[in-house]
C-alpha cells in the first residue's frame, strides 16, 4: 500500500529531526513547518478514526502534546522517527477521546459522523458517490483496532513494524488486524 503524504511529494529540504531541534530552542517557525508538513495526513487520519467533529480538536491537542513532550522525543531511538512519534500521540489522543466518551456511544456517534456528516455538498456529488458512501459505511463497521491499523498504514505510510510499535502490539497482531480488515472490506465492497 503506497500513499503519498503531502510532504512526500517533494523531498523535504530540512529533516523532521532538524526542525524538532530548532523548535526545542524556541524557534516557532520550525514548529510551523512541521505542522504544515503533516497537517493534511494527520487531519485525515483523525477524521477517519475519531470522526469529523473532533478531528480538528484532536489535531490541535496532538501538536500541543508534541510541544509539551518535546524533550522526551529521541530521534536516535529509532522506530520511525518524528512521524511515528507524532502519529503515536495522535492515536493516543483518539483513544483517550474514545475512552472518555464511552466506547458504545462513541461507536454510534462515529458511525453517524462517518456516514452522515462526511457526505459532500450536492454540487460535489459525482457519479462514483454511491461507491464512496458504501466505503464509508464499510469502514465504520470495522472494529476500532482494525480501523486504526488500516488508517495508520494509509495516511502515515509507516512500516508495519512501526505501526505495531505505535499501537503497542506485536507485529503479528498488527498484520492480523490488517489482513482481517482488508478481507472484510473487500467482501463488503463486493456485496
Amino acid at each position, binding site marked *: *500500500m*503506497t*500513499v503519498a503524504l503531502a510532504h512526500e511529494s517533494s523531498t523535504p529540504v530540512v529533516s523532521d529531526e532538524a526542525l524538532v531541534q530548532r*523548535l*526545542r*530552542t*524556541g*524557534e*516557532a517557525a520550525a*514548529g*510551523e513547518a512541521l*505542522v*504544515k508538513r503533516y*497537517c*493534511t495526513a494527520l*487531519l*485525515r487520519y483523525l*477524521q477517519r478514526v475519531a470522526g*469529523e*467533529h473532533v*478531528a*480538528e480538536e484532536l*489535531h*490541535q491537542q496532538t*501538536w*500541543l502534546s508534541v*510541544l509539551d513532550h*518535546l524533550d522526551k522525543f529521541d530521534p536516535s531511538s529509532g522506530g520511525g522517527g518524528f512521524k511515528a512519534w507524532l502519529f503515536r500521540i495522535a492515536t493516543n489522543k483518539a483513544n483517550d477521546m474514545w475512552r472518555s466518551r464511552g466506547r458504545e456511544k462513541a461507536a454510534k456517534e462515529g458511525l453517524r459522523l462517518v456516514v452522515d456528516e*462526511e457526505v*459532500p455538498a450536492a454540487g*460535489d*456529488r*459525482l457519479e*462514483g*458517490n454511491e*461507491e*464512496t458512501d458504501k*466505503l*464509508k459505511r464499510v469502514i465504520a463497521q470495522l472494529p476500532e483496532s482494525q480501523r486504526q491499523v*488500516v488508517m495508520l*498504514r*494509509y495516511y502515515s505510510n509507516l*512500516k*508495519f*513494524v512501526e505501526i505495531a510499535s505505535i499501537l503497542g502490539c506485536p*507485529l*503479528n497482531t498488527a*498484520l*492480523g488486524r*490488517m*489482513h482481517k480488515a*482488508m*478481507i472484510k*472490506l*473487500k467482501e463488503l*465492497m463486493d456485496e
Partner: protein
Amino acid sequence: MVEELDNKHLLLLYLADELSPPQRGRLERLLASDQELRLELDRLGAAQGSLEAGLGRLDELCPLPVKADSAVRRVARDMRSRAIQLGVSSRQTAPRYNHGLRRIAFPAAVAASVLVTVMVWIDRRERAAVGPANRRQVSVVPSDSPQTTDPANVESESDFALWRDSFQTHLASATTTEGVSRDEISPFLLNANATMQD
C-alpha cells in the same frame, strides 16, 4: 521475528515491500510452488487496490474537517506562545545556579553565626577561669573625693576628712569584696593611706 509470521502475514509485508531480499526470495520460491498462496496474494492485492482507490476517492470528495491553512494557523498561534515559553524556560536554566547559591547562603550564615557565638562563649569561659589573683590592674578611684588627688593639696580640714573617708571606704571594698591585695594598689594610694593612718 519475520520468520515466525504466518504466510498470509508475510504476504502483506511482501505487498508493502517490507521484506529483506533473502526473505523476499524465499517467499517467491514458495509462491512458485504453492498455488493456494498465490491466490491469497491475488486476493490481498485486489483488496489493497480497492481500499486505496476507495480512500483516495473519499479524500477527493470529502473536504477536510477544517481547511489545512486554518488548522496550521491555529496550531502555529498556540505554538508561538508555547515556543516563547520554551525559550524563556531555556533562558531561565542558567540562573538556577544563583538560586543554588541563595539556598546555601542562609544556612552558611547561620552556621557562621553559631561558630562566632561558640568562639565568644569559649573565650569568655577562659577569661572567667582566670582567678582574681591573676588580675593585673585595678584602679581604685574615690569618686566622692575632691578633684585634687594629692592629700597635700587639700586645703581645708573638712575636705581632707571627706577625702580620707571616701578613700578608706573604697580601699576596704577593693581589698575585701573584689579580692584585691594591697600590693596591687598603686603606690600613690598606699602612701596616701599611710599618711592618713599617721
